[in-house]
């Protein structure tokens, strides 16, 4: 089967799931130790009282790390799409994160389409991570575009 056919079928399957929740991202507390570590890593003064960096929201609910192998992680959304590149990010913040916030998140499939690239067909997949506080009020949402330039080996 050709790459274009495989990409097309994969996009077709994803299109049937538009609006679906792909993943429950879980829940986490914005604690001073994590904020200190994140601020240090960004090169900021480490005092967590100086504020929670805006983009920390995207890392509070990260998946468990697999440290058993020294290899690049797969970032494909399914078993077919491969060779991804980041096509851009758009984040909206309703309010700044605060120490003590309890953040929950979910990942939603927003769109999937097949496009013609310079070197062949591309699958463009847009997802949105939605983050809410303990009262289920929106804190932030991050829309990501991933471009898959081929299929998995």
């Amino acid at each position, binding site marked *: 089967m050709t790459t274009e056919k495989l990409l097309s079928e994969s996009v077709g399957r994803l299109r049937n799931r538009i609006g679906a929740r792909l993943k429950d991202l879980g829940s986490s507390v914005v604690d001073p130790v994590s904020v200190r570590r994140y601020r240090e890593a960004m090169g900021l003064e480490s005092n967590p009282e100086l504020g929670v960096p805006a*983009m920390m929201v995207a890392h509070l609910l990260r*998946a468990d790390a697999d440290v058993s192998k020294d290899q690049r992680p797969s970032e494909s959304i399914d078993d077919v799409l491969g060779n991804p590149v980041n096509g851009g990010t758009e984040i909206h913040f309703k309010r700044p994160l605060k120490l003590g916030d309890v953040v929950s998140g979910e990942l939603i499939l927003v769109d999937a389409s097949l496009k013609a690239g310079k070197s062949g067909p591309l699958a463009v997949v847009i997802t949105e991570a939605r983050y809410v506080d303990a009262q289920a009020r929106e804190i932030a949402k991050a829309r990501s575009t991933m471009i898959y330039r081929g299929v998995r080996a």
Partner: protein
Amino acid sequence: MMLAGLQVAELAKIEPGQLLRTYRRPQVTMTQLAFYCAAAGVVDPIHYDREFARAYGFDDAVVNGSLRVAWMAQVLHELALPHGWLTRLACSHNGVMLVGQTPVIEVRYQSHIAGDDGTHADLLIQTLVDGKVCDQGSGSVILFPRF
């Protein structure tokens, strides 16, 4: 980063496209990348293993795209302090950034409007390395919000 916050009077005097702030980051170190990967839970060795990165065709360890976005978000957020905050950031990466490089973040004015809830400013942001644009995007901040 400690950038001077934006003032409404400042916005009233400038033209769209005019440079508002320049922030020169220190050189990115391997220690910083290791700390960032640990803090953010990144397990891709191209960011913390130089030989691994070279085996994948990079000239050196690769600065995380999410760290570059975090820097841009922080710069815009600090421009809105002490009362406001970053409300939107849209950005994309134009090129690879490597350990040892010294990113420069530039913020330009786009527009602003006084709303019922405060003053909203739209800004353009880009990160340059050796004069080349690595990241670019736009952001919005709310200044002096009214609740």
